[in-house]
């Protein structure tokens, strides 16, 4: 088996970056990743970049633009799109390309400039990740889809709005020390429950925000890691990706996301690891209920016990979940989030060693990508 490592990471500040363009944030993330890897940049042989929608800026074909702006022409580039999981898919495509033997060093990135679009247009664009003909055409929003799942989880397992609120409270607490995060202030359960209802039972503070941001990583094969004398490689131990039904109403259950279960199984099997072995997890809390679904579907607790797991603070004591703030507090530039999660796992592993998992969901769960990384592939 060949081995692949992340050797450099870089990102922009996440937030409402009105003064920045899509091309400038993409460039900044890329340059920071190259500097962090300690390479010159000319060594990069291909670029995969996640970007959910050209409808935010009118700009399609971002991959070629990003290579152009970085002076990386004429390397081949591909923009990857699987809704909010676009960046993790770009990471996985880069990984598979390196395993293929075709390349030695690749940049995987993600970028989204959501605030160039205003008002209800943002919600309409995001809803493009659901079923336009049979969900969107009746006025369902993304918050609405996750609200329908939340309602069902409350009905089947007794999950409470307080437990969901605790997800947001914990993520805000964790973002206070994250210099890249959009919201660096703590909130209380009451703050969440008293915030306006967006789609019942979800309140404003159950929802991740609209964010601009970009993130990039440099990935290399084991041979290239040795040749470049990289001192702190973080290895990819397992990777999985799966699809599921696009529309909620076509699923057998609204309280689990099958694509997560399948992608996680692939990643656990490849890495020969179990949920118990994971020290840090970055999970896709686009809405608070989705962190609870992730905790269950990734196997950190039994189905239906995710709310209790949060309430008992096991997201800090048994495993560190979204220890840098999650999508809720760091912000969720949709096509960049998957790489941002990888970067936070890499930073955790560089500082403290161990094993981390990143789970990136597309849409309401029709795509999931799970990657497991560690400080040592031989363990």
């Amino acid at each position, binding site marked *: 088996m060949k081995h692949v490592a992340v050797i450099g990471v870089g990102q922009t500040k996440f937030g409402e970056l009105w003064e920045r363009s899509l091309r400038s944030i993409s460039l900044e993330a890329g340059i920071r990743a190259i500097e962090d890897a300690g390479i010159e940049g000319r060594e990069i042989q291909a670029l995969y970049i996640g970007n959910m929608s050209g*409808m935010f800026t009118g700009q399609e074909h971002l991959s070629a633009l990003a290579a152009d702006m970085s002076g990386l022409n004429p390397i081949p580039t591909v923009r990857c799109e699987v809704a909010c999981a676009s960046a993790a898919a770009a990471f996985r495509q880069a990984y598979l390309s390196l395993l293929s033997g075709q390349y030695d060093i690749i940049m995987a990135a993600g970028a989204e400039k959501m605030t160039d679009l205003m008002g*209800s247009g943002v919600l309409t*664009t995001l809803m493009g990740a659901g079923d336009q003909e*049979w969900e*969107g055409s009746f006025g369902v929003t993304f*918050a609405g889809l996750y609200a329908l799942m939340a309602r069902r989880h409350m009905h089947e397992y007794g999950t409470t709005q307080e437990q969901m609120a605790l997800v947001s409270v914990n993520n805000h607490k964790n973002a206070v020390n994250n210099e890249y995060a959009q919201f660096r202030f703590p909130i209380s359960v009451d703050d969440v429950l008293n915030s306006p209802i967006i789609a019942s039972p979800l309140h404003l503070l159950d929802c991740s925000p609209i964010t601009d941001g970009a993130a990039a990583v440099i990935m290399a094969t084991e041979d290239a890691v040795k040749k470049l004398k990289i001192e702190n490689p973080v290895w990819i131990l397992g990777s999985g990706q799966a699809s599921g039904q696009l529309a*909620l109403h076509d699923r057998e259950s609204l309280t689990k996301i099958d694509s997560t279960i399948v992608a996680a199984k692939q990643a656990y099997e490849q890495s020969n690891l179990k949920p118990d072995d994971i020290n840090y997890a970055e999970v896709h809390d686009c809405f608070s209920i989705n962190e609870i679904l992730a905790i269950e579907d990734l196997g950190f607790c039994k189905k239906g016990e995710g709310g209790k797991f949060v309430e008992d603070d096991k997201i800090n004591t048994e495993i560190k979940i979204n220890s840098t703030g999650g999508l809720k507090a760091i912000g969720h530039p949709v096509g960049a989030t998957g790489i941002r999660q990888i970067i936070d796992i890499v930073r955790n592993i560089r500082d403290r060693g161990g094993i981390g998992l990143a789970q990136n969901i597309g849409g309401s769960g029709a795509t999931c990508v799970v990657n497991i990384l560690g400080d040592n592939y031989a363990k």
Partner: protein
Amino acid sequence: MPNKSSIPLSWRLNKSIYRLVGNKCKRCGTFFFPSRDICPKCRRKGDIEEVVFSGEGEVYSYTMINVAPKGFEQQTPYLIGIIKLKEGPLITGQIVRPNNNIEIGKKVYAVFRKLTEDSKSGIIKYGFKFKIKD
């Protein structure tokens, strides 16, 4: 922008959205709404037949939408349900008011209503919504 006002889109969905026409796979007996060109279980071995659904069902999940996408801003707040149809499939749609007695399991039936109106000169889209029985 997703073309909410697309006449071809509305035109080709009329049959399903006006009369709840879906289909079923005769081989495995699974009902589909919206209709599918192939049965995901039997794939090319399946045998698809058109079905008109009764519109009877019950609330499987629901949410009150307060912040709307384009074209629905004037309708807020509005209630969206996932309805379990008597014939089996789940279906997404709006639940009409009065809806203060909404809960999971309530019996509903389909009614014909205006869905959206695309400005003064655009198309008016009609189709099914659901109403609570009692």
